[in-house]
């Protein structure tokens, strides 16, 4: 029986818990600040001059902060607006209202030249490894694009060298620089996407469901890679996902979205061990656990019906139509996101 090369000679990384407020020395300014961000998509009709007939309220006023080096998880089911939120806060969609800032650079206040500066600091990793790389470009061109756009390095040769370094950094063979995306597997393509995001040396990366499209065994590879990079390069992440198990693994804090609003935010373990919002509770109870005895033993909260349409969200608390503990006033008033315990915010009338 031969022992092959060990997978890692680093000690298993035990991630430190984020500092509790009283441990902080002086106020620490968050790296990322999002405030009352809204993004509505108009529904239009008409041939030449389009009439607006309605709004899809994809993101309807969300606020959060992320500290330097932290990973915030943004979770929710399809239609909750998490992907739209990620793209809007990076300016890929123009916000309907509200603000987002990274390292002091405010998205709304930027003119074109400073927008480029913002783009250097804040990058994105996309969900679909097959669609997020231009099929007609070589890996060298793809990973090198940020280098060219931001004018890093003076010569093409230097840029090519840097591209090779980046590929090695993400665990790819630098020899493959001149190949095309279709020659790589899904996991490898995702790594190319990571290398591209790192090229401009960003401070903050929005990871938009980066592993959903990958096989289970490859997911672990990519997640480990993201963590290693975070430790090495001091990155800050917004991790958008619907896989709650993976979110628990990688995130420090978690925010739960439903129909365009954040319903609960908390430190990781606290959210999973004592969820306060009824939606969070239902969501967590629906997550499959790979342990048959435990799975059989737990209490399932099954929600009725489907998620309402973001075109016409329910009045008051958006969740009241499916909520097991809804009362009459829940249909009338929109609950505010309030801090009910230290660092734990909930938007629900019934939670004190």
């Amino acid at each position, binding site marked *: 029986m031969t022992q092959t090369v060990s997978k*890692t000679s680093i000690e298993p990384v035990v991630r430190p818990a984020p500092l509790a407020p009283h441990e902080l020395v002086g106020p620490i300014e968050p790296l990322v600040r999002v405030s009352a961000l809204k993004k509505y998509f108009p529904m239009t009709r008409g041939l030449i001059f389009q009439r607006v007939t309605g709004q899809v309220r994809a993101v309807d006023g969300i606020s959060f902060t992320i500290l330097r080096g932290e990973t915030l998880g943004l979770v929710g089911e399809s239609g909750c607006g998490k992907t739209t939120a990620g793209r809007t806060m990076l300016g890929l969609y123009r916000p309907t209202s509200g603000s987002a800032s990274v390292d002091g650079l405010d998205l709304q206040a930027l003119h074109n030249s400073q927008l480029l500066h913002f783009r250097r600091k804040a990058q994105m990793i996309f969900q679909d490894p097959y669609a997020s790389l231009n099929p007609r470009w070589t890996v060298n061109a793809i990973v090198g694009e940020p280098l060219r756009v931001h004018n890093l390095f003076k010569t093409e040769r230097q840029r090519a060298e840097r591209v090779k370094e980046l590929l090695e950094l993400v*665990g790819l063979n630098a020899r493959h620089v001149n190949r095309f995306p279709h020659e790589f*597997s899904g996991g490898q393509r995702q790594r190319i996407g990571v290398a*591209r995001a790192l090229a401009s040396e960003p401070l903050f990366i929005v990871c938009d469901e980066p592993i959903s499209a990958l096989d289970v065994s490859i997911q672990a590879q990519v997640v480990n890679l993201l963590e290693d990079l975070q430790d090495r390069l001091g990155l800050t992440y917004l991790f958008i996902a619907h896989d709650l198990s993976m979110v628990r693994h990688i995130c420090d804090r978690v925010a739960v979205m439903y129909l365009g609003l954040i319903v609960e935010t908390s430190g990781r373990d606290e959210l999973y061990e004592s969820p306060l919002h009824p939606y969070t509770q239902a969501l967590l109870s629906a997550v499959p656990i790979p342990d048959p005895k435990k799975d059989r033993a737990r209490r399932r909260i099954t929600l009725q019906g489907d998620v309402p349409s973001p075109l016409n969200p329910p009045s008051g608390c958006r969740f009241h139509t499916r909520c097991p503990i809804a009362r009459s006033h829940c249909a009338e008033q929109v609950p505010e996101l309030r801090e009910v315990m230290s660092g734990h915010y909930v938007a629900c009338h019934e939670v004190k």
Partner: protein
Amino acid sequence: MDSATSVARLVPDELEAPPLSLRELVWRRFRRHKMAIFGLVMLVALLAYAFVPSFFISEDYANHTDTSLRLHAPSADHPFGTDTVGRDILARTIYGGQISIIIGLTAAILEVLAGVLIGAMAGYYGGLLDSLLMRFTEAMLNIPQIFLLIVMAKFFASGIPNIEFLGREYSGSVVVIVLIIGLTSWPYLARIVRAEFLSLKEREFVLAARATGTPTRQIIFGHILPNCIAPIVVTATLGVANAITLEAYISFLGMGVRAPTATWGNMLENANNYIESAAWLWFFPGLLIVLTVLSINFLGDGLRDALDPRSRTL
């Protein structure tokens, strides 16, 4: 970062197949189309026919009239016979072919430039610009191309002087024809390009380029355009055939390229009164037109299949 490097090392290089660039893949698929290969070969032969012999046969010879030789049937001296004023038809098909083909090519180039530009702008920017450009395009599409050609040709062609190009002198009507065909054929391509842009601009790699901060011009021409080469190439190829056919139409109607410049089309016109009595007048130019258009169409079909991104090998 040992876990990452050990990943790269532990598994034998997965990309064992030699890198097949997209071009090579396309060529492989193309090769499987017998008719397309036939079309390509035929087209090369026709191009050779039109351009190579001009080293041996001068244009003057093609234009040399000798009424004593008029309307001779094909013979050893004149393999394709002579026309109504005694000119050698073989030589005229050669020089006429040059014009017809050049008209086809330049009109197609014009069509592509206009169609891509308008389609790209409309597709990428959307909104009011898109609406305006598309209404304009649809209006253009509604104009019957042939009538416009006839009217324009009648209006302009007579007053334009001869021009010199590549050592040959042409009637200015050639330029007019090219312009008109090119400027009336672009709407078809514009709609196709616009549709491609509309769908491609939502793709994630475009979003990624925006997230990188890539300027819009680079996104349009560097990112999106290379991904819609396929329909552009196919439409351009078929556009050449279309232009050649159109030129033949209007020249046959007497509105096209003027004497003394020969084209396959106006040779057909000269045969108008002799359809039965001197069949060689129309047979040879007609045959060449048919062969050229057919081979371009086969080629276009093969290209369309070869470039289809939904084919499994890609």
